[in-house]
């Protein structure tokens, strides 16, 4: 299958070529991992400030408050609150989850799992990372501009994001940062797609690829197709802000010759709905693989899982209208979008059933990656099911822009994707750094995260159903919401609990990189190609390009002698 064999390059010698401007997909993957974890911390701190404000309005934020907000005696001011939720969303989606799942594990896993020596365009790969760094610098710099960072919501709808709504330069920098990041991700996507099509090891058909690679590949396709759409949108927004074009200015186009704010919503959601699948597809793929690996069984209906993920990828491009039911869309359109959205539950149900089928009668090993993978099954189930209420027009008109929406997308995007990312980190850590993470700390981390995030997001759904709107600085100015203060305090305590739980991960991660026990070549006893080479993977990956003879999850076969798994390079027993 491989269309040509990549040469083995000499190992880089200088610090710069080895750790900074590296062409090696594994190093770039690790760079993206650090980048993502750093922004996860920043976005998490912002979430804490948001939660603190909602639970204890008018009280100073503990510890940092007086330092960050001296003018208000440590209380988060209303305009900063708007900036916080805007940048929390932006950072978590574009700068934390995308780099961790797509940047880090996409780069690290794709060549290793398909038996290639590197990505097909290593220079493009390096450029992609450094553009992402440039974008991060622009975004962080926007925090230090006179009127602060962007504050128009992560969706940055006009007129909130035009000069009328956000006069500061922060919003312009936000648009530029997103544009640069879009270019970076598109470069990555070109690389991923080309690599998977042309560099699969001999004998590896598409259905012999691990489902992780399937997920990452479909993600890359969506990225390549839809990031340019957002790019065009923010470019026109920048033109509106800087050069005075009138694309998104309110007013009737025919009479005053000005633009239409709703156009931006269309453009944004044409990108935005595929984006949620961009985030979740790698996590689905990783979980589908991990469930099989740790249940010691072949993935149930792996082909059906791959095909249903493909179906979802296709369907995800035609459902964006369900984000816009309240924009005076014609009922014909809202109902069409409702039907199409509901259709997604069919392929989702197929692979969800396949996950359960994989677990059924497996001899499950409850190691940390498996705990996180099982966590994804649980939280994605909840997140997916609550999506149905938002897809239905009649219920959405009530739930639109309430905390129910916030709870729903945090269950799917934050909880599922984050737990999937942690599962991947615990699983591939030995191959990345050649050492093992501590299992006990990992399990403590899992249970604290699981309990904490369910407390937070379940609570959000309840307050949302009770009518609490999102993006309000102080909801308790409304009398009917005052009774929700205790449950909001519960959500905040859960968030703090979960936040402190992440310290276990940070300690475990940093400690284990240098001091963890050395990992063997195949600590999890699984058969995909990356486990046929030493840990950590050498810079050329494969000395001899492997020849693939069976699927990725051939486990628990009674014909196997002495072990319950076989490598993909071995004939099916």
């Amino acid at each position, binding site marked *: 299958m491989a269309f*040509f064999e990549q040469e083995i390059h000499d190992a880089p010698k200088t610090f710069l070529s080895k750790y900074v401007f590296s062409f090696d997909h594994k190093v770039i993957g690790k760079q993206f991992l650090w980048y993502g974890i750093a922004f996860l911390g920043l976005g998490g701190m912002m979430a804490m400030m948001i939660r603190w404000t909602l639970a204890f309005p008018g009280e100073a934020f503990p510890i940092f408050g007086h330092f960050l907000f001296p003018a208000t005696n440590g209380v988060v001011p209303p305009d900063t609150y708007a900036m916080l939720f805007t940048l929390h969303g932006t950072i978590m989606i574009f700068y934390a989850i995308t780099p961790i799942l797509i940047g880090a594990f996409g780069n690290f896993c794709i060549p290793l799992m398909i038996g290639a020596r590197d990505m097909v365009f290593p220079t493009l790969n390096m450029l992609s990372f450094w553009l992402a760094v440039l974008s991060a610098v622009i975004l962080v710099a926007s925090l230090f501009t006179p009127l602060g960072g962007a504050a128009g919501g992560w969706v940055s709808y006009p007129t909130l994001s035009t000069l009328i709504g956000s006069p500061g330069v922060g919003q312009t920098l936000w648009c530029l940062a997103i544009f640069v990041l879009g270019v970076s991700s598109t470069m990555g996507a070109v690389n991923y*797609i*080309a690599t998977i099509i042309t560099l699969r090891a001999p004998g590896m058909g598409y259905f012999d690829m691990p489902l992780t690679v399937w997920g990452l590949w479909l993600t890359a396709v969506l990225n*390549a197709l*839809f990031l340019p759409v957002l790019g*065009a949108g923010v470019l026109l927004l920048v*033109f509106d802000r800087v050069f*005075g074009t009138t694309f998104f200015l309110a007013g009737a186009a025919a009479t005053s010759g000005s*633009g239409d704010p709703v156009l931006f919503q*269309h453009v944004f959601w044409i990108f935005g709905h595929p984006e949620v699948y961009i985030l979740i597809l790698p996590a689905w793929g990783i979980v589908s693989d991990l469930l099989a690996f740790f249940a010691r069984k072949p993935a149930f209906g792996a082909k059906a899982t791959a095909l249903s993920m493909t179906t979802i990828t296709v369907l995800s491009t035609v459902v964006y209208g369900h984000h816009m039911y309240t924009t005076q869309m014609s009922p014909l359109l809202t109902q069409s979008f409702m039907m199409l959205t509901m259709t997604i539950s069919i392929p989702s149900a197929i692979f969800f059933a396949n996950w359960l089928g994989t677990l059924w009668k497996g001899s499950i090993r409850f190691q940390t990656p498996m705990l996180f993978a099982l966590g994804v099954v649980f939280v994605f189930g909840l997140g997916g099911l609550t999506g149905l209420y938002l897809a239905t027009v009649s219920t959405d008109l009530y739930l639109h822009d309430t905390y129910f929406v916030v709870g729903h997308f945090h269950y799917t995007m934050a909880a599922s994707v984050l737990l999937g990312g942690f599962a991947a980190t615990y699983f591939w850590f030995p191959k990345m750094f050649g050492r093992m993470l501590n299992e006990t700390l990992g399990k403590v981390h899992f249970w604290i995260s699981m309990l904490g995030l369910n407390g937070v997001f379940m609570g959000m759904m309840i307050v949302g159903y009770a009518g609490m709107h999102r993006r309000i600085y102080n909801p308790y100015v409304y009398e009917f919401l005052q009774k929700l203060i205790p449950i909001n305090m519960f959500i905040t305590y859960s968030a703090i609990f979960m936040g402190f739980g992440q310290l276990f991960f940070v300690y475990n991660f940093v400690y284990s990189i240098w001091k963890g026990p050395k990992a063997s070549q195949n600590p999890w006893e699984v058969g995909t190609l990356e486990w046929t080479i030493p840990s950590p993977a050498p810079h050329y990956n494969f000395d001899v390009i492997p020849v693939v003879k069976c699927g990725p999850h051939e486990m628990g076969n009674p014909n196997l002698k002495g072990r319950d798994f076989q490598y993909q390079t071995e004939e099916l027993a």
Partner: protein
Amino acid sequence: MAQAMANLATKTMSESDQGKEIVFSVAMIVVLVSFAMLFATLMMGFAMFRFTAPVWPPAGMVKPSLILPGISTLFIILSSIAFIWFEKDTANKKGLILTISLGVGFMLTQSLFWHQLKSNGIFVSSGIFPSIIYAFTWIHAAHIIVALGLLLWLLFSPTLSTTTKSKLRATSVGKFWHFLGIVWLIMFLTIFVL
């Protein structure tokens, strides 16, 4: 004919070169689809304004004269043809030089066009119709400048006609150049003519 060409290609190229050709064409398909989505989004925005307006151009605007955009169109079509001529024999750089000159000519007529709009009192902030004309031609021109840079890079590449990789680079840059020509044709027809 195409079959004969393909047979000839397999005979003269090693297997690894053929593999690289596939890699480049797969990558170029993805790249061009990405760029196409960018321009398609712009065209979608244009279509929305165009079809919801009872009168077009709105607010008493008049369409700009077709002379300069017409010359631009002519330049970009000729430059694509020049590039096809160059691709037939990459050792002869005359075709490449002609492509670049015509591309620069395109940029010059575009600048004259912007100047003409400005001297007619049509500024970028004068409403949706000038917004569309300016913004779309700017975005297209930015791509043309990048593509001209790539063409110059080809021109000064010493290994242009010797290695397979350079030939593949030339083909890929050419695909991008033709793509920008097609985008301009679509923009010319929809925004200026119709």
